[in-house]
């Protein structure tokens, strides 16, 4: 299960991040650690980026990148 599988408003817990080193590093630096809770806030039409809430911030990440964030 990944972030994309949440319905908007639903909360999940991060299990790990796949993908290339840059993306992993960036996301972890922004606080997306295994065990951290994340909420899917909003999706944009035509498979555009999604908005998520992690810790106290709202982030926009591309849909393909969001698919790499695995949830427990």
């Amino acid at each position, binding site marked *: 299960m990944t972030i994309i599988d949440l319905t908007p408003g639903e*909360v999940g817990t991060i299990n790990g991040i796949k993908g290339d080193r840059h993306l992993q590093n960036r996301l972890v630096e922004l*606080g997306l650690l295994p065990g951290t809770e994340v909420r899917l806030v909003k999706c*944009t039409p035509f*498979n*555009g980026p999604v908005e998520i*809430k992690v810790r*106290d911030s709202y*982030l*926009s990440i591309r849909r393909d990148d969001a698919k790499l964030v695995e949830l427990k």
Partner: protein
Amino acid sequence: MKKSHFVEPKPKAIDPSKWVALVGNPNCGKTAIFNLLTGLNQKVSNYPGITVEKKVGKVYTQEKTFFNLLDLPGTYSLSAESFDEQIVSDQVVSWAKGEDPPSVIVSVVDASNLSRNLYLTTQLLDLDIPVIVALNMMDRLEDVSHIDIKKLERELGVSAVIPISAKMNWGLDDLKKAIQKPIKTREQVDHQSQWIKQELSHQFKSLIDSKFLSSKFAAAQALRRISRNGSINGEDTKIESIRNSISELGYYIETLEATLRYEWIDGIMPLVQPKIKPKIHKETRSERWDQILTHSWMGPGIFMVILYFIFQSIFTWAAVPMDWIQAGIDNISIFVLSNLAPGMLRDILVEGIIGGVGAIVIFLPQILILSFFLTVLEDTGYMARVAFMLDKSMTKMGLHGKSILPLMSGYACAIPGIMSARTIDSWKERLVTILILPLMSCSARLPVYTLLISAFIPPITVGGYFNLQGLTLVVMYFLGTVTALILAKIFSRFIKEKSSSSFVMELPPYRVPIARSVIRQVFIRGKLFMVNAGKIIMAISIVLWFLASFPKVDASVTDVNPIHHSYAGKIGHAMEPVIRPLGFDWKIGIGLLTSFAAREVMVSTLATIYNVEDRGDETVNLREAMQNDVDEKTGKPVYTPLIALALMVFYVFAAQCMATFAIVRQETNSWKWPIFMITYLTILAYTCAFIVYRGGLFLGFS
């Protein structure tokens, strides 16, 4: 000054006359704090070799002393992902080697987003330079007591934690006092080198770069390089074995640094914020605003309305102050004319300087209005939402959600636009954005359009609603923008990708901008425009006046206007064979040449030429002079609506602003891209103007 590994440097006392660095996450309020501390005592320059604004200011203290404050670009971490962040990490690395380090680092932290902001602070602490945490945005907390300041100070081991609010302007005096106090570095918590020492000390030691004064920083830096798999002195096998040991310990090498630091931060959070429960479900006010502002169809609609409003206001609101400025310029030339004896000085003043500079100052209102709107949109947090909403469409065009702001700034001036493309983390999309930016019709083209439209396009109504003059202007903007998007698509096909593109962007909470901050920003933009444009234009106006006025020919000897025999006339005539096919004459030729300095110079060039040619005393009305200009041989008008149209189309595309290419050279760090840019723009301009002029003639227009 080399230090051996793992020897803690002695505590240093600070000398307040040394300098202080301001570091923080994007949107933590760093700019606001910098402005409050330095007031107007700031100097904006560039870092050597790169066009990143380096802002240094003087901060005066109650004791009438001062210290220098350096503002660094906002960054989330010292392991750089974008160009902007690279600057900060390069700076920090040089401090770590003892190259002019600051005496104190002020780490600005957004109190409403504590754990994420503290990540960077823990990285700065490795340097063993005293760190003061400026805990900003305290006004945004529901209750100030939610953060235990003393505990935070102790846990982090920083010199001080000072709660402040840049918005309410409180706490800044405390911050100043804390900076001045000689500070001892405390017993600092060791966030990861402790861990490394325990787990990997033997293997790790050989990878430590002894150039770093702080062993903690050296360890962290080695770790960063291992996780990038970069070889340190070609010791690949060692790195390989360290990577193996790390994964045996159950850690993920790619994200090891961040994981260790966050584990530590998350460990202290319950102590520091005892009353705060995790509130991931809580819907903030910004989120409720976003239900409308980033709604899937209302959102883009609202953005269109805002855009329309901005452009409308640039043209309508600016008209009044522009009239004042024009009146002022007229008065000045009348004043000079009536108070100075005729002669060369008066000529050069009226025909050269006042005519030339006046033609430019008139755009100041438009530049100020556009910068005002862009600053407000940026500071409220709205611009990030626009990037979020339009990312998909922009990617389809080969661009990036974050290309929106640079492209919009491009309507004011390509230079700040090109510079703001730095925030795009993917090199390819950043390059494409830069390459197409000169096609966004900048405000320097406006005077050319305005002059030609008012002189040659009749103010008639077409299609029942549209004023033909206004419509022509819109078409010019449209032509540039659409071509830009098409070319973006084409360029992105052919440019090889150097880095993968990701789009992780923070959507900061909506905030009411701080008025003082906005005003300062707009003021700085205006000042830069006046100083830069002013300098170039003044110089060109004088040189041009000289070229157009000399060599003096005795008017009684020849019946042609002496300007034909001037140096400028000769240059222009020499250009004619090339530009004749587009319908342009020698006067425009000179204008095209001088436009290389800046496009708006075209207008002042024509003004200067007609003023010199006129030989009368009054400054001529350029519009009428152009309308009435007839060919001395054929008696036909020199300029027709068709020529004016071809000229405008030429200006939509032409590569003319040298400053733009200088910036592109610096931002792309190569000559290849500015040369490519000049080439493609020139071909495009010539071809399109040719098609418009020849096509128009063929269809029977004139």
